[in-house]
């Protein structure tokens, strides 16, 4: 049996038909609505980018304030410990020429007490500021997610904001009690 190969040239390739079809596809005319939608989408994207940048800045601010708060708390503890030591210390007899120990101790105690009071006030202010910032941050995050259509995630963040408020109130109550 003599099998004859069908005559086929490059011009018979189906791919050329596909290419002609693609070349004849005109670019789709954008309707007025779709143009508006495209511009709205671009604006929304720009807004989202801006909000993300703001979010990042607030996060960094909150982080810096937390660090400051921790530093003040540590200083406060240190000074309270020093004060306790000084109060418990027995007076040491000194030569007549020198100032009496009691006077030196009292002056130092007064200074330390004043410093503790000052730090305590700063602590309260820092606490409040931090709480407000953290709440603001959580509400903003919730708003962003809400706007992005993820209301269940936004609810979680709002819950977080409320829990934070409760914890701070409890901390304040305890502080007053201990004072």
């Amino acid at each position, binding site marked *: 049996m003599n099998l004859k190969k069908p005559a086929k*040239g*490059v011009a018979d390739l189906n*791919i*050329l038909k596909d290419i002609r079809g*693609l*070349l004849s596809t005109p670019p789709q005319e954008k309707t007025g609505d779709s143009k508006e939608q495209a511009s709205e989408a671009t604006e929304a994207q720009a807004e*989202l980018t801006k909000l993300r940048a703001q979010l990042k800045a607030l996060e960094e601010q909150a982080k810096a304030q937390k660090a400051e708060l921790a530093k003040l708390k540590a200083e406060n503890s240190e000074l309270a410990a020093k004060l306790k030591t000084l109060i418990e210390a027995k007076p040491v007899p000194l030569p007549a020429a020198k100032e009496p120990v009691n006077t030196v101790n009292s002056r130092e105690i007064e200074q330390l007490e004043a410093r503790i009071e000052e730090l305590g006030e700063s602590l309260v202010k820092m606490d409040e500021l931090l709480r407000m910032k953290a709440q603001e941050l959580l509400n903003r995050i919730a708003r962003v997610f809400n706007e992005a259509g993820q209301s269940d995630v936004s609810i979680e963040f709002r819950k977080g904001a409320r829990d934070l408020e409760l914890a701070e109130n409890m901390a304040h109550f305890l502080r007053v009690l201990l004072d």
Partner: protein
Amino acid sequence: MGRVIAVAQHKGGTGKTTTCISLGASLCDMGKSVLIVDLDPQASLTLSMGINPLEVERSVHEVLVDPNVTVKSTIVTRPTICFSVVPSHVDLAMAESELAGRIGRERALQKKLAPVKDDYDYILIDCPPTLGVLVVNALTAADSVLIPIQCEPLTLYGVKHLLQVINLIREDVNPNLSIEGVLRTMFDRRTKLSQEVSESISQTFGDLVFSTIIYRHIKFAEGPIHELPINFYASKSVGAEEYRNLAKELVARESEKAR
């Protein structure tokens, strides 16, 4: 305002890099100012111009992924090369994953080229043989695309995929993208197949096909050894003359369109 031309083709080895280099040099010979962007992670164009991708401070990779890096800060010029080059780097291969998830990732190159567009008459983009985020960036940034087609049947399949992407780009992000032209490359006079493919390309693409044909010349392969365009190391060769003709044809076409 400079004209941005992406030299793109899905199939590798069809003469994209050679076309960018030789056409770029030929346009320079005509007094045009040219910038070539090497958008291929293989960095063939960069290496062919004697630029070591591992030694460049910044490449097109940083241009795409780092918002603070400008195209101007990456440009390399050499006294031996008449055009400027934005070099590539192997890290560009990671651009796909680095740009993933970024809003507007397809416009990264377009945004970065905008400030330098007026500084050059032509900006040629040497595209990789893929259809990923790098080529999408090139087609979004480009005014037109030049398609080199090796005169072999398999190349036609690559053209089909490229045309599909071009149509998508036109619909979504760059409605003004046009086809600059189709360039028949690596034409082998010894084979009937080359002639058949060349004729089919002419019939299929019609007026889009450049009348200039780039034949297969061994002189082109010597480029990376000399680290120069063919216009410099073999100025009188047939290959150099073919690309000079292509440059004249390209400029003439633009003048006609402008009328």
